[in-house]
C-alpha cells in the first residue's frame, strides 16, 4: 500500500512546491519512502513473484471472461442490455456468483439458480482477479473471518434481526415477490456466506462493514455453521419450515397412521 501512495503524494507536491507545508510533506514523504522501502525489501522477492503471477492470472481471467461472460456483461465488463456492468463489483462478487454455479447463468428467470459449478477453482480465481483489476470492489474475505470460531449467540441474534425475514430463522429459505426467493443456507460455505453479505447477490441487500462489522459477520457464519453441524435436538427437523411442515406431517403421517389403525381395530376378525 505504501508504495502506491507515494507517487500519489508526489503528484500533489508539484502543484504546491512553494507552500509552507512543503517541508512537512517532504519529511512525510521521506519517512514513507524509507518505511515503504524497508517493508518492500523484506518481501520484495515474494511480492515480485505474486505480481507476475497475478498479472498472468488477470490475463487468463480476461480470456475466460471474453469467452464465457462477455456475451451478457460486455467485452470490457461494461454491461449490456442482458447483463449488468461488473466494473467495481469486486472479486468477492465473482467468487460468489461463479463459485456457487449461479454464473454463467443457465436461463433467464426470476433469479439465477444455484447449479453445478462450471469453472475450476483456478479459473474462478482468475475471473475474480480480472474483474477486481477493473476497479476496486469488495475483496475476497480474510480466512480469519471464516473460521467459525466467533460468538454464535451474537451471530444468532444478528441473523434473526437481519437475515431471518427472508432466509427463515433456521436458514431454511423463504419466498420473495414475483417468484424470487431467498435460498436455504444449509451447507453454504463460510466464504460464500461472507461474500453474499458484502456483495448482495440477486435480490439480497448489501450488508457492508458499516451495517454489520466483519467480526459480526464472522459471528453470523459461526451460527450458521453451528446449525449445519448440530442436528436439531428434537429429532428430524422436517425441513425446519415451521408449523406448515409440522401440520402436514401430523395430518398425513400422524392422523393417517391412526386412521389406518382404527380400520385395523374394527376389521372383523372372522
Amino acid at each position, binding site marked *: 500500500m505504501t508504495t502506491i501512495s507515494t507517487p500519489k503524494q508526489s503528484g500533489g507536491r508539484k502543484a504546491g512546491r512553494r507552500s509552507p507545508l512543503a517541508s512537512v510533506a517532504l519529511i512525510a514523504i521521506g519517512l514513507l519512502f524509507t518505511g515503504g522501502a524497508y517493508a518492500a525489501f523484506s518481501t520484495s522477492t515474494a511480492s515480485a513473484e505474486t505480481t507476475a503471477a497475478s498479472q498472468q492470472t488477470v490475463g487468463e481471467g480476461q480470456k475466460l471472461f471474453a469467452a464465457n461472460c462477455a456475451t451478457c456483461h460486455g467485452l470490457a465488463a461494461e454491461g449490456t442490455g442482458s447483463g449488468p456492468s461488473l466494473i467495481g463489483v469486486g472479486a468477492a462478487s465473482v467468487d460468489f456468483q461463479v463459485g456457487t454455479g449461479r454464473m454463467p447463468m443457465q436461463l433467464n428467470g426470476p433469479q439465477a439458480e444455484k447449479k453445478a459449478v462450471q469453472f475450476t477453482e483456478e479459473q474462478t480465481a482468475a475471473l475474480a482477479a480480472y474483474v477486481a483489476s477493473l476497479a476496486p470492489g469488495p475483496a475476497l474475505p480474510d480466512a480469519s473471518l471464516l473460521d467459525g470460531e466467533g460468538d454464535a449467540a451474537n451471530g*444468532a441474534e444478528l441473523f434473526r434481526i437481519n437475515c431471518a425475514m*427472508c*432466509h427463515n430463522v433456521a436458514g431454511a429459505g*423463504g419466498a420473495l415477490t414475483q*417468484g424470487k*426467493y431467498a435460498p436455504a443456507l444449509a451447507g453454504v460455505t463460510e466464504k460464500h456466506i461472507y461474500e453474499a453479505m458484502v456483495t448482495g447477490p440477486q435480490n439480497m441487500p448489501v450488508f457492508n462493514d458499516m451495517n454489520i462489522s466483519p467480526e459480526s459477520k464472522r459471528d453470523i457464519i459461526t451460527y450458521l455453521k453451528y446449525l449445519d453441524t448440530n442436528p436439531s435436538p428434537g429429532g428430524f427437523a422436517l425441513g425446519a419450515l415451521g408449523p406448515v411442515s*409440522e401440520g402436514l406431517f401430523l395430518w398425513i403421517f400422524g392422523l393417517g397412521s391412526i386412521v389406518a389403525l382404527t380400520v385395523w*381395530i374394527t376389521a372383523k376378525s372372522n
Partner: protein
Amino acid sequence: MSTATTTTELVETKKSGGLTGAAANYIDERTSISTAVKELGRKIFPDHWSFLLGEVALYSFVIILLSGSFLTFFFHASMTPVEYDGSYLPLKGVEMSAAMASSLDISFDIRGGLLMRQVHHWAALLFVAAIGLHMLRIYFTGAFRKPRELNWVIGFILFILAMAEGFTGYSLPDDLLSGNGLRIIDGMVKGIPVVGTWISFLLFGGEFPGEQIVGRLYSLHILLLPAIIVALIAMHLLFVVVHKHTQYPGAGRTNQNVVGYPVLPVYAAKAGGFFFIVFGIVMLMASLFTINPIWNYGPYDPSPVSAGTQPDWYIGFADGALRLIPPGLEFVWLDRTWSFNILIPLVALGLFILVVLIYPFIEAWVTGDKREHHILDRPRNAPTRTAIGAAGVTFYAALWATASSDIIATHFKVTMEGVIHTMQFLVIVGPFIAFFVTKRICLALQKKDREIVLHGYESGRIVRLPGGEYIEVHQPVDEYERWKLVSYNDYKPLMIRPNAKGKITVGQKARAGLSRWFFEDRIEPVSSTELERTHGDHH
C-alpha cells in the same frame, strides 16, 4: 338395590370369586356400583373405524393433560427479563423473558423435558385434527339430526375451545414465533373500530407486548379453558350414552336397536388398547420429529419476523383469510381508521363458524322432520347436505392452504402473487364448483345404486344369443346388500301452507324455497312394488 343383594347372596353361597370377587363385592356393598357397571357394561357399540375418531380426540386430550402437568412443574409464566444461562450455546447470554428461559431449560436441562414438550405439542395438533375429522364424519353421515343437535353444538364449541387452548399454548414460550402470532391477534383486535384499541390495551395490560400477556394466557391455558373442556367432554360423552350410538344402515339395523358389541368386555378392551396405540404413536412422533424448535426462533423481539412464520395448522384458516384479503380496503372516516382488510375476514370467519354451529337446526327447519334418527345416512343419500359439506370443506381448505402461500411458492417454484390470486379464486368460486360437482356425483351414485337394485350388478359373463346378439348377464344383489341400498329417507320439497290466520308468511316462503333447493333434485329409493315389477327381469 335388589341386584346388589342378589349378588351378595351369590358370592356368599358360591365363594368361588376369590380375591377379585371379594373386592368387587366389598366395593359394591358400599357404592352400589354394580347398577352402573351393569348399565354401562351392557352398552352396545357398533363397530366402524369412523366411530373411533372421537376417541382419538379424547385420548389425545388425556395425553395433553398428562404431559402438560409435567410442563407446569418447570415453566415460569413470567415476562421478567433474565439472561439465559442454560446449555444451548447459540442463546447463551441473550436477554429473554423468564418464560422463554424456562421453556429452553425444559428443552435442554430437564431430563425428559424436551420429549414432554414435543409430546404435548404433537398431541395438541392431533387433538384438534381428530376433532376436525370426527366432526366431518358426524356431518357427512347426518349424525347431528334429532336427537343429537345439542351434542353437535357442544362438540363444535369443544373444537373452538381446542383451538383457543392451542393458541394460548403456542403463545406461552414467548419465542419469536409466538410473539409474532400474538402481534397478529393484537393487530386484528386493534382493527375493530372504536373499541379495538381499548380491548388490546386491556388484553396486554398496556401497549403490546407489555409484561402481562404470558401470565394471563397461562391462567387461561392451564385453568379456565381445560376446566370448561373437561366439563363439556363429560356432557358430550353423557349424551352419547343417553342417545345411544348411531349405526350405519344394514340388514337387521333399525332406528330402535343398536347392533354391535357390548362395552364389557369387548369395547373396554378395544378402547383401552386403542388409548395405548394413540399414546404410542404420539410418543413415536415426539421422540423422532422436532416440533416448535423454540431454540431456533429465539426470544421474542418485536422487530424481526422470520420467513415461514405460520400459526399451528388449526389457526391457519384465519391466517389465510388475512393473506387473501386484497389491499386498499382501509380508509379514514369520522376521524377513525376503518380497516376493512381486517373486518371482512373477521366477519366472514365469524359467519362461517356460526353457520357450522347452527347447521343441524337449519337442516331440521328445512326438512321439517321431527323424527329421531339413529341410522346414519350414506353421504350420497343426502346429496344437498353432502354438497354443502364439500363446499364448506373447500372454503376452509382454501383458506387453510393460503396460510402456507409462501411455502407453496418456494417449494413448487411458482410466484407468491400467483398463489394468492389462485387461492382468492378458489376461496370464492371453489365452494360453488365443489357444491355442483359433489351433488352431481351423489345423484349419479344414487342412480347407480337404484340400477343395481332393479337390474342387478354386472356379472362379467357375456352370453351370445341364438340370434347373434351379445348380452352381459346381470346378477341380482343379495338381500343384505339390497337393504343397504334401498333403506334411506326420501324428502320431498315442503309445500307452502298458510298458518292459522290463513296467511303465508315470509318465513314460510323462505322455508319452502330452501326446501325446494334442498330436495328438487332427488333419486327416490327403490320401492317394493318397483322391485316386484322388475323381478325376473335380470337380463
